[in-house]
């Protein structure tokens, strides 16, 4: 649990204080200013506007806006739409994983049920039954997911930590198995399909073209991200952090930990349902696999890879999820193996995910010492790449032998023809991999020494600045 807790809540206030010249360690306790004495400002005033925050959110909005203009192919538009959906669902998952410390194996239940209810609503709209505009259908998905979370979450959130994980797994299986039992609602093998070009068309927006739908998804992504960030700043958002870090103490203070978990679980399901509704609009078909275990596993995997300890980590995770699912799976058949290995190493060496790696290096950069280690990074990257090429060649040859035996022993790997039956190819691959590993180890040792030294310097420097 400790890894998931060394995070930003609290530090934001500290940073603001530091900017404003307030000594550290006294968050919120601004020194009383004597009027007249401080008439000349010797620091930049961040209040009432927090410039940094405006820049970050403005940049995010701008990025969402211009992304489809930079990548204009239809594949890019499809992927961008999926990324928006994935970002919302990963962020909603992180509400319970990163902020609540609840490891769920059944989050797809909520995004999936949202998708099903959304597509059924869409079909009702098409039949002329309900006068709901298409752009609001994701909200319908969100509200229906919330309803399911009220029902199922009551059982799941009775426990925390490991039992919670097992129960969510059980509930996930329950819903998935039921999906096959009620073909009337879940559509059986074929799923439920709909047509998003329906209902009232304000300003001529039909959501027929992918680009129009992308902007709907982008709007939802921005609003949901902002809402979820705002949630981390509410008393409830802070309370769930406390429940994650020290539930016993929270109980002593007089809060019901189960209730806090329950409410946050419901809120998280709401956002998951919105993403499900968007997915239903995007694909215009919902099959029962959207509530399945593999989907939940993917949410967990990528949220963690992106970084559960920082708010923006799951955004990276969502982007990676689409990139891996669309591009990596095209590139190699063994993509799940690579993904599993990356995940394993990430858990072992960087439990804060990619976001924590970025933040650690930003810290080094802010103390002006990043330029010393970029050579080491280069060495690490190159040696890791060499080892990876060797390993990947072997994995690809194995997959080729297993799956494409009919095509003969030859395969193309990174532009080179390899003979999967040849002793020399295997020897070469092993040799390349071992060389890479050896060189990587040398580079790693050097880097670890450097890194430790820099961290020591930073600690010292921070202490020194405190005393100033």
């Amino acid at each position: 649990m400790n890894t998931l807790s060394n995070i930003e809540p609290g530090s934001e206030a500290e940073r603001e204080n530091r900017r404003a010249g307030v000594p550290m360690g006294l968050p919120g306790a601004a020194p009383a200013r004597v009027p007249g004495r401080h008439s000349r400002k010797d620091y930049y005033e961040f209040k009432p506007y927090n410039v940094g925050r405006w820049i970050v959110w403005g940049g995010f909005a701008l990025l969402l806006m211009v992304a489809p203009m930079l990548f204009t192919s239809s594949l890019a538009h499809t992927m961008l739409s999926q990324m928006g959906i994935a970002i919302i669902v990963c962020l909603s998952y992180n509400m319970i994983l990163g902020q609540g410390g609840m490891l769920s194996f059944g989050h797809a239940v909520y995004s999936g049920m949202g998708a099903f209810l959304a597509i059924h609503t869409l079909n009702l709209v098409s039949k002329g039954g309900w006068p709901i505009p298409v752009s609001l259908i994701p909200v319908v998905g969100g509200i229906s997911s919330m309803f399911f979370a009220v029902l199922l979450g009551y059982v799941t959130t009775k426990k925390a930590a490991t039992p919670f994980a097992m129960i969510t797994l059980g509930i996930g299986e329950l819903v998935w198995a039921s999906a096959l039992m009620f073909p009337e609602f879940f559509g059986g093998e074929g799923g439920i399909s709909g047509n998003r070009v329906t209902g009232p068309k304000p300003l001529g927006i039909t959501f027929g073209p992918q680009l129009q739908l992308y902007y709907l998804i982008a709007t939802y992504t921005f609003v949901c991200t902002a809402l979820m960030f705002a949630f981390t700043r509410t008393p409830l958002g802070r309370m769930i952090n406390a429940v994650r870090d020290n539930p016993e103490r929270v109980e002593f203070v007089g809060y019901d930990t189960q209730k806090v978990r329950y409410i946050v679980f419901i809120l998280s399901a709401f956002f998951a349902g919105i993403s499900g509704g968007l997915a239903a609009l995007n694909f215009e078909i919902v099959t029962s696999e959207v509530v399945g275990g593999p989907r939940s596993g993917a949410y967990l995997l990528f949220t963690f890879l992106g970084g559960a300890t920082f708010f923006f980590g799951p955004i990276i995770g969502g982007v990676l999820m689409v990139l891996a699912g669309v591009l990596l799976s095209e590139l190699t058949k063994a993509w799940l193996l690579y993904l599993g290995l990356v995940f394993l190493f990430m858990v072992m060496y960087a439990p804060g995910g990619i976001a924590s790696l970025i933040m650690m290096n930003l810290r080094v950069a802010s103390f002006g010492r990043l330029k010393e280690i970029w050579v080491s990074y280069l060495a690490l990257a190159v040696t890791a790449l060499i080892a990876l090429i060797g390993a990947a060649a072997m994995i690809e040859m194995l997959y080729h032998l297993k799956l494409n035996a009919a095509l003969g022993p030859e395969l193309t790997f990174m532009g080179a023809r390899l003979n999967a039956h040849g002793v020399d190819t295997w020897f070469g691959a092993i040799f390349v991999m071992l060389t890479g590993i050896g060189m990587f180890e040398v580079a790693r040792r050097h880097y670890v020494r450097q890194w430790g030294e820099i961290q020591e310097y930073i600690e010292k420097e921070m202490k020194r600045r405190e005393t100033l």
Partner: protein
Amino acid sequence: MEFFTISLLNGISYGLLLFMLCSGLTLIFSMMGVLNFAHASFYMLGAYFAYTATQLLGFFPALAVAPLLVGLIGALFEKFALRRVHKFGHVPELLITFGLSFILLEMVQLVWGTSSVDYRVPAALDGPLFTIFGTQFPMYRGFMMLVALLMLVALWLLLTRTRIGLVIQAALTHPDTVEALGHNVPRVFMLVFGGGCALAALAGVIGGNAFVTEPGMAATVGSVIFVVVVVGGMGSLAGAFVASLLIGIIQTFAVGVDASLINGLGQLGIDITPQTFGYPLWKLKISQIAPILPYLFLVLILIFRPKGLLGTREG
């Protein structure tokens, strides 16, 4: 009566197999607090190892070799990966076993292919054990029950009657004291993890040929064994035994019952037609809902007895 006896016997043998799987999981959980998400993957690995070992050595040597190999893999995983994340807490521990389950699944598909392998019951155990009500009870089912019971007794003797068992039990509650007394607690943990994986593999060896040996077999039992562990009470070996028998029997009986709510209500004089509200729910046969029964059971247990059947702690 015939249906009852046969279903009961099948249910018990399935339940005992579930127990073999859960015992390792429970042991690891109660010792180390680690929920081994890859436990079912070790079960699958055991079945595949046994398949290969049977071709090379024969079935009975495979019965010993496959669990040992899998136990070794488990111990190595504990030593080089799990121990590293122990200091980060329980969630990363769960996550790393989750990652391992991905890798093991892919590895198995890589080595043995994506379709099922022809892992058969050995000729010596093929055939009926006895005939009851005109139905033959397969000898292999009896063998499965025998192995499971032997394992249960051996496990119980090991934990309560041997020195290492006492150290394990002590390390469960007071790891620091045990370490102070000069026992190597990390090594004990490694042994327990390896042993738990070996138990899963043993279940794989005898379950793999009774059912199907395929890459999907881990997912089939994976979630059921977690249900068993929660229903029995987290970390309670006796609870796991009761729960696995219960779930095994319930599921086996449900598969054989061809009644639905329509029949039941029809006997009470309530007629249900396709126009009645909720018709899809009423027309479901009990055999159709058999797959979800364990999970329904889990939900009910959590509502009415959150610590599980024989559990002692509220999680």
